[in-house]
């Protein structure tokens, strides 16, 4: 079997992780593939949130296609990490950008100029307000936002971060380390 370094796979991740841990002096003799693969999803999620909340959040984004029904879409897409300040919603046809509103109350009740289409976050989805002030919006949209990738979708430039994150999860962190790490994620 030939392994490619350009894409992370179920076969390459255990090899790369063991090499990394071994180079740090860790004992990897009992580090079995199943224990590594079982943590891949958690690693992808942890890594994706770190990127999404960090300064280089644009490095791991992709487009999601949604078509709201009656001015609402209950979800954005599988794995989407939607941050209204860091995401972009535009018409699939034409590419005009919609205007974000940070409050659902403002979207539905405030007086807003009628020449734009607005949206605000509602739960895990988005609520829209048409340019004419109605809330029956139903045009196809493209949403560019951060996301939790599949293993094969991790860009080459994030392979190191993926492995670092996975290595960190393989060993139980000390409580104070874990707390510090969580607060850093929250501040980003």
């Amino acid at each position, binding site marked *: 079997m030939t392994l490619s370094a350009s894409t992370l796979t*179920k*076969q390459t991740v255990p090899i790369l992780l063991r090499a990394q841990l071994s180079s740090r002096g860790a004992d990897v003799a009992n580090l079995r*593939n*199943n*224990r590594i*693969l*079982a943590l891949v*999803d958690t690693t992808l999620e942890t890594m994706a949130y770190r990127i999404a909340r960090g300064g280089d959040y644009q490095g791991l984004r992709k487009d999601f296609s949604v078509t709201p029904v009656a001015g609402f879409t209950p979800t954005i897409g599988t794995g989407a990490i939607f941050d209204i300040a860091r995401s972009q919603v535009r018409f699939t046809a034409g590419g005009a950008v919609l205007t974000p509103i940070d409050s659902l109350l403002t979207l539905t009740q405030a007086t807003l100029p009628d020449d734009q289409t607005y949206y605000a976050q509602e739960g895990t989805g988005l609520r829209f307000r048409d340019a004419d002030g109605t809330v029956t919006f139903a045009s196809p949209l493209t949403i560019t936002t951060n996301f939790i990738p599949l*293993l094969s979708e991790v860009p080459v430039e994030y392979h190191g971060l993926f492995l670092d994150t996975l290595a960190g999860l393989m060993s139980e962190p000390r409580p104070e380390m874990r707390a510090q790490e969580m607060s850093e994620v929250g501040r980003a």
Partner: protein
Amino acid sequence: MAAADYIVVAKQVISLLNAQAVTTAYPTSATDIGDDRRNADEIKEAVVESDLEARLAICETPGNGFRNLFIDSASPVLLLNVPQAGRLPERVGPVSRVEIKVNAADTVWIAGEQCPLNEVQEMIANPDAYQNTAHDAINSPLGGYYYIDEMSDFITWTGNAVRVYVATLGTIDRTTPLLRTPDAYSPFLVARSLARLYKHGDNSAFIEWYDRQARELMAMIRLGARVLPQVEPLIRQAA
């Protein structure tokens, strides 16, 4: 290493018993016996039993370099009776090694890696927990693990098929006879045979002398010695 030569061992036993025909200083064959208290059959049986004792010790001792002589590397035992749950074959001592074929289409058998039972069971039952990886898929990183319970002759594994290499005593030929203990362990065969051949009326120092040596040599076999020291003859005291 070649197996011990029965005739050489038997002649040494006869010589140390001083039972050869009075006309020869050293026995000329395994049946060159001139002592009415001894005969060729009992010597043959003593040597064969000692050979079996040595074979058993070798097979029971992982790490003994001669154990490989009792493992049929050309014909490992393929276990296919029930997928992922096999009954270990007849053997002496622990299973030597386990090889696994991950996918049915594979032609390569990889060395199996030991793994706790619960982990093997999880890998088989829950591919979703491992990136949707079936344990027996082509190139599956989950294939190649096994759990073995020697006490209940049970093995379970991840992957398509498993085969095991086990030590067995091999053919027991009491007639020719054909020994299988390696030549390096001949001193044990001699000492143990002499201890076995003790009869009522023999000098008790005789059995004690050779029995002690046989025990010491057996301990060395159990420790995996590559070579054994020669048997020291009992120096008979002047009457």
